[in-house]
């Protein structure tokens, strides 16, 4: 008897339909506003209304010719990439420490390391502003980087820690036993094994930084990132250009997140092209 037969015997049709409807509605609720924004970004009308006007790329053209947008995008990309690299490196170190060592106060260490994302961003943003301005680091890209690393590193740590927990605990010792020094084992065993998670963490942290608004708004000063710029536009006037920027940001973030998903769940590490096939 196949799995499907077993499953159909034990299934209730009504519950099945209800569960499917629940999922469809759930996704609709999440994605409808984004889809609407996407549709209106391609609409020639000045205001979002139905029926739609003509198909048009004018808002994208307007965005692309706005030097302020380009400046924001440059800031965002610079901050995002830098944050991704630093946060992933820190997260890797923190996760490896947790994996490798037992020490007094380890639970406290873990709790502290994972706390930043649970602090309300407004409070974190305010605190960052107060702190960074005190040490003369506020109002530039560096301050956004510092603040974003604080909220991103725990994500990287969580992702890499999960991967390390899937590793055969004998693997590192086996490398030592075969003549690898601790550094060599790190380079030839721990890092290759963790690589899908390292790349996944890199993309996720980049996406988080790319989207993050509140903290950036507090500390960015004149070097506004794109989300902060968007608020600026909104305060001035409601323009379909916002929809165009929103669509662009959404697509970029989703690309990063999907890449991370593929790496983290796609058994990226297990499947390798075989030489004999």
């Amino acid at each position, binding site marked *: 008897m196949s799995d499907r037969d077993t499953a159909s015997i034990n299934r209730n049709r009504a519950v099945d339909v209800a569960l499917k409807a629940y999922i469809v509605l759930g996704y609709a609720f999440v994605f409808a506003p984004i889809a609407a924004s996407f549709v209106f970004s391609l609409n020639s009308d000045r205001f979002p209304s139905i029926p739609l006007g003509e198909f048009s790329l004018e808002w994208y053209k307007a965005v692309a010719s706005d030097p302020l947008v380009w400046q924001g995008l440059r800031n965002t990309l610079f901050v995002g990439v830098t944050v991704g690299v630093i946060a992933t490196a820190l997260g890797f170190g923190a996760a490896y420490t947790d994996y490798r060592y037992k020490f007094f106060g380890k639970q406290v260490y873990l709790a502290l390391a994972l706390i930043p994302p649970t602090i309300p961003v407004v409070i974190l943003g305010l605190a960052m502003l107060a702190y960074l301005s005190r040490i003369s680091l506020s109002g530039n890209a560096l301050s956004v980087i510092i603040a974003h690393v604080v909220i991103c590193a725990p994500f990287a740590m969580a992702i890499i820690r999960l991967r390390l927990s899937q590793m055969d605990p004998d693997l590192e010792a*086996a490398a030592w036993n075969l003549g690898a020094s601790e550094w060599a084992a790190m380079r030839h065993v721990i890092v290759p094994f963790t690589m899908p998670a390292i790349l996944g963490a890199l993309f996720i942290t980049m996406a988080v930084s790319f989207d993050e608004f509140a903290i950036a708004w507090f500390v960015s000063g004149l070097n506004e990132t794109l989300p902060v710029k968007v608020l600026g536009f909104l305060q001035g006037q409601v323009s379909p250009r916002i929809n165009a920027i929103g669509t662009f940001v959404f697509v970029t973030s989703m690309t990063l997140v999907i890449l991370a998903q593929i790496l983290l769940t796609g058994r990226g590490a297990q499947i390798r092209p075989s030489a004999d096939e």
Partner: protein
Amino acid sequence: MKNDTLVSFEGVVKRFGDFVAVKRMDFEIGKGEFLAIMGSSGCGKTTTLRMLAGLEAPSEGVIRLSGKPINDLPTWSRDTPMVWQSLALFPFLNVVENVEFALKMRAVGKAERRRRAEQWLDRMQISEFAGRNISQLSGGQRQRVALARSLVVEPEILLLDEPLSALDAALKVRMQSVLKNLQRETGITFVYVTHSQSEAFSMADRVVIMSRGQIEQIGTPQEIYRTPRTRFVADFLGSSNVFTGTVTASDGGGVMLDTPAGPLRLTSGERLAAAPGRSATLTVLDTRTNLALTAPGGPVNAIPVRMIGEEFIGATATIYLETGTGQEIRVQKSHEELAGIPLEIGQELFAWWAHADGHLVTEE
């Protein structure tokens, strides 16, 4: 120290906090020997192996490899490769890359290490899988990769930590002969940790039996099987009937024991100074214990027993009996040897063995 000694443990103790994993070990491993360390879980056998591999540091004592103390040598500077219970193959490397690993760590050139790795793949008969991922291999193939990966540096000694425990019974037997042949052909010293009596006894030249962090007995499988040195070993092997009693007489002709099962005599007790009045334990192999309807005469011990059960395994039968005082006795015989003896539950019989077949063991 003898010239043919490769490893020596001298007063080695290992503590984890308050727990003493290895109490005091003094023993030597000869060059080219196949040594099995056997015991139940938690007896300290794996800790002993890990100390030899350099994965644990002894709390006291000295471990020597080829005469040199290696206590302070990190595992990556010793040539003591290990085959892990989990195998610990690198899942992100393919078969030949796994085998090359140790050579790469020793900075052997690319072409040379590929050549040597392929030699070992060939030797282990897994050349056709060179480019495969570990996840595409069967249990037996992985086992061979793990062996090749450890042996590629052609060490003097190979450590094996229950390497066959994940295999099914038939494959286990096949891998046992692969291991034994490999050891014989290469002359590499094998130190093999296992809880399985059949693995240890079928492959090893000498067996170390450990219990609660101590060595109970070291000897050839034959010696240990025939003459267990301690009560623990006799019970652990489960192949002997064990009687504990008080020595009533001890002279050149042997030892007399007064046990709950009756007075028993043995002639091979000279190993032990069994002074009258001392407590002592007698063991006799269940295959050397016989059954009869009437008490036989001659230089034998005979105990009246009642049959309580039987078990057939292939050509042999194990008969379970009970003495008047409730002690269990086992008799293992072929069906032919048991012919003519009525085997009914409750049947009154005599269990008997020759005086010369009994052995004295030290009391715990």
